[in-house]
């Protein structure tokens, strides 16, 4: 990661600093793989079940495993209680996370089966989808599912005229805020997830991609360390 500027963000971070990150692998006993990730006050549990039989059967693919994803914010993860159940934001996020991970997994090795990823946001303070995707990647690895590569994900953005890494909810509330979640592969920085809301120039886009790339590289190191941590003792 490039040199840090003097931190002038509300929490003292430099523009390209992540919030404190915590990663732990294998935290749940009844999943095939699991991980717990914190990006500051954003907390996520990820778990993987599978490969397993597909229910309902007609969703089965004869040539490869299907990878399904659930993204869920628990009711007290946010300030105003979130009603359990279907919500369109969650459906969309589950879809883009699932699509970001599918090329990572050797799905063709498990025809007619399903790999289910469950992402539970237990506390939310911006960046939930990128923390969830980072955790999902760890949980897949923990489940021993053969993968081409891992992905790391973080949001780049803009607030009060500055390009920033890993915005908090407070920063996202700026009038000119732009939030751009990005996921990249470990080895060759392929962008696997990219979303954006706001109003920005093409120059901003390029700047944010640079900042996001640095962030993803840093997260990739932490992911590797977290996996080593789990497997060193066993």
């Amino acid at each position, binding site marked *: 990661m490039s040199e840090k500027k003097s931190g002038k963000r509300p929490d003292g971070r430099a523009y390209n600093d992540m919030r404190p990150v915590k990663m732990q692998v294998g935290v749940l006993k*009844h999943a095939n793989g699991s991980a717990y990730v914190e990006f500051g006050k954003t907390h996520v549990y990820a778990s993987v079940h599978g490969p397993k039989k597909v229910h309902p059967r007609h969703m089965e693919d004869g040539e490869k495993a299907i990878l399904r994803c659930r993204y869920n914010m628990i009711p007290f993860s946010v300030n*105003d209680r979130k009603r359990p159940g279907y919500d369109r934001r969650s459906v969309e996020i589950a879809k883009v996370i699932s699509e970001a991970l599918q090329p990572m997994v050797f799905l063709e090795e498990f025809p007619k089966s399903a790999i289910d990823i469950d992402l539970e946001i237990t506390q939310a303070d911006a960046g939930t989808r990128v923390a969830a995707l980072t955790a999902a990647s760890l949980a897949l690895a923990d489940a021993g599912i053969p993968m081409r590569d891992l992905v790391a994900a973080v949001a780049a953005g803009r607030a009060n005229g500055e390009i920033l890494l890993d915005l908090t909810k407070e920063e996202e509330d700026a009038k000119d805020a732009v939030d751009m979640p990005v996921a990249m592969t470990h080895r060759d920085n392929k962008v696997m997830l990219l979303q954006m809301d706001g109003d920005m120039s093409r120059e901003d886009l390029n700047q944010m991609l640079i900042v996001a790339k640095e962030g993803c590289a840093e997260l990739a190191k932490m992911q590797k360390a977290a996996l080593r941590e789990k497997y060193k003792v066993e």
Partner: protein
Amino acid sequence: MKANKEYILEMLKASKRLDGRALDEMRPIKIEIGISENAEGSARVTIGDTVVLAGVKMATAEPYSDSPDKGVMTTSAEFMPCASHKFEGGRPGEVEVELARVVDRGIRGSECLDFEKLCITPGEKVWLSFLDILVLDHDGNLIDAAGIAAAAAFLDAKFPALDSEGKVDRSVPLTDKKLPMAGIPLAITVRKINGVLMLDTTEAEEEAVGARVTITTKDNGNITSIQMGGIGGFTDAEISEAAKITEKTAKKLRDGAFKKAF
């Protein structure tokens, strides 16, 4: 699973358990409170490999017309897909509904939560408390874990601030005022497997099926809720015995894990 099941039943004939515990011995229990910054009160309870979260959120609402001076409570339970490959039996929805309702009735019946103190303006506005229970990892004995987490979350909970218009103000921190929770209602479950009564069953033990009875007691030892379930029956003597065991176990928990957490 089959082999496991028969082995468990065989051992139980000699009053032995797979993990070496006594029949009335609970696994290690950990109660962590204040685990969520966005909840008014929250707890994570770990019993062996079972992990349950509970959180309390407050909102304001109109009272019911038949109890204009009382607050309102509503309880939900959800099994996270991560918790298990399968569930206790029956449709999953059923198990969640029963779990939520048993925990809810235990708290309500105990009158530990003072609903009259949850009234803001009689007939007009009262506090509405949402209790949400989330099962993260299921290694048996979910009702007890959920009940402990619920009690701990309520004991941990503080009122949010109201603004000048009487609306919940999320722009400031919670007040210092605790929710009116007097005492610790605790649901303890006794399972009967192959004629043997036992506490705190693991998922593998529950696989061996059998009937269960959950008895909620409050601090003075009174019973505030009973729920039988599972497959099988109890004699009335066994029910009486279960009532004794659960009262004793609840007392131990109040003096142990709860003292430690609060």
